């Protein structure tokens, strides 16, 4: 058994770290959301990959089949995907409104605008 036997886990970990890195390192709000989606995708793979049994068929009872793949992860991840879509749609909607309110979707520009607004407020 070598490390490569678990390649699906390696892919999962790669996606997980890559997604999280984009969320943290990028200042663009859209890019952050893309990173977030990649991060969530890693979880889908984490659940789905172990559900597949080698030699197993689709989990529908039929004559002549003994080994079935596990259907539960698929159902769970269908739910998780829906949650992910809802989050992404809401995030994008917020970004659209941030763009309308601030005229930018770059984190540093918005924070600068916010700081100067706070300074004006104080004086």
């Amino acid at each position, binding site marked *: 058994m070598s490390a490569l036997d678990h390649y699906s886990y390696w892919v999962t970990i790669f996606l*997980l770290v890559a997604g999280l890195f984009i969320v943290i390192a990028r200042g663009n709000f859209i890019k952050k*959301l893309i990173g977030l989606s990649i991060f969530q995708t890693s979880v889908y793979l984490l*659940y789905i990959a172990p559900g597949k049994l080698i030699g197993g068929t689709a989990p529908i009872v039929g004559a002549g089949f003994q080994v079935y793949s596990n259907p539960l992860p698929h159902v769970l991840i269908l739910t*998780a995907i829906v*949650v992910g879509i809802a*989050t992404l749609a809401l995030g994008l909607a917020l970004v659209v409104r941030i763009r309308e309110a601030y005229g930018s979707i770059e984190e540093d520009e918005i924070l600068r605008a*916010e700081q100067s607004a706070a300074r004006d407020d*104080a004086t």
Partner: protein
Amino acid sequence: MIDGTHLPVLQVVVPLLCAPLIVLVRGGRIGWAIATAASVFFLASSLAILLEVQRVGVISYAIGSWPPPWGIEYRIDAANAFMLVLLGLVASVVAPYAWASVRAEIPRDNHYLFYALYCLALAGLGGIAVTGDAFNLFVFLEISSLASYVLIALDRDRRALLAAYQYLILGTIGATFIVIGVGLLYLMTGTLNLADIASRLGDVRQARPVLAALAFLTVGISLKAALFPLHMWLPGAYAHAPSAVSALLAATATKVSVYVLLRFYFSVFGTTAVFAAMPMGDVLLALSIAAMIVASAAAAFQTDLKRLLAYSSVAQIGYITLGVSFATATGLTGGIVHLFNHGVTKGALFMLVGAIAFRLGSSRIDRMAGLARSMPLTCAGIVVGGLGLIGVPGTAGFVSKWYLVLAAIEAGSWVIAFVVVASSLIAVAYVWRFVEVAYFRPPSEETARLKEPPAALLVPAGVLLAASVYFGVEPSLTLGAAYGAAEALLAGPR
């Protein structure tokens, strides 16, 4: 027909059904009526469940009549029954408050959306508290979180959008960490029912994936609970949200997350695995003390009263987790009772600050000079709530801090007991900032013209405030419930 045995599921389903109903009728007033009715039902049902739990111990409800562990199970013991009562109490006070507050703060076209989302958030929070299924817990967590992101963004202030976006990013990272943890547990045990996971963990309790699951769950839940240093989303979110939303979320959302942490630590992994084999107690202890001191100090330097209260919330979460970190009956009782007391106190405070902002149009402290002359009742209320945050005898905050000090002494650490008292002194500093400005500065032209906020805002806040004082003078009810909850948790896997 429907009878009392279905209360655990009705607790979640009634608010969940009310949300689409409000969207269908599209009316702000009807929406308010439906949301208030749902909240009151939630409170009544939670009280009935609490009494039933105290009689029989554990209630189990099989969704779809599929017996656990195959189907989704709703499982209520003393710990989550107590959470439900806190949720119901806060929700049924905030809903009447929302009537006047929402009309002042949210554009008219969005009123019905506010009440629909309010019901969704309530359903989600209630669902987290009742469910006994790990994945179901994640789904309810996301329902409540998505609803709260939108609720925060409904405010007119553009900074609310930014706060909601930041909360969305960090909240989603937290939730994803939780699913990863749950997934690893599922891989190792083949089940999602919390009680079943606990019983099957047996031999693999020390296996690497299970420990990784513990780590992922701890970080994910801590993000949701705003445990220091993962609290960065909280001040912005609470400071810029509409007042009713701040009150609801500050009093319930982070508290429910702390409950989830307790559930995983004590009922799934087990006390020995978390606190003896792994150094989670020490980690929690260090973070709690850091939260108590750093966040309290940060609160003392805020210029906005809502933001000040938000930082104070971070500190108070530190007190709750401090009690948890001892993993003793006294410590847990203190933590859980503080969870309740602080929820009630902070809910009242956010509502009162919202009432000030209703008249003043701002929650900046420097604009509140001499406010006590024009709004004596409101300001007195904030002072009473502030005394509760400090932990002055006669307020609910004193009871919980007393138990935390007792637990620290029981654990043999005078230093921690001293830190609890010392950090309360920092709380004096931040409460004093408001008192100094509102009571000892001459009123400005602006504040001199103001009148007391309307009764529609003051009465609900007063009810919560009275509750916080009542539970400070006569703590046997809350202490009894909290002690029952601590015992249920310490009894280990159910």
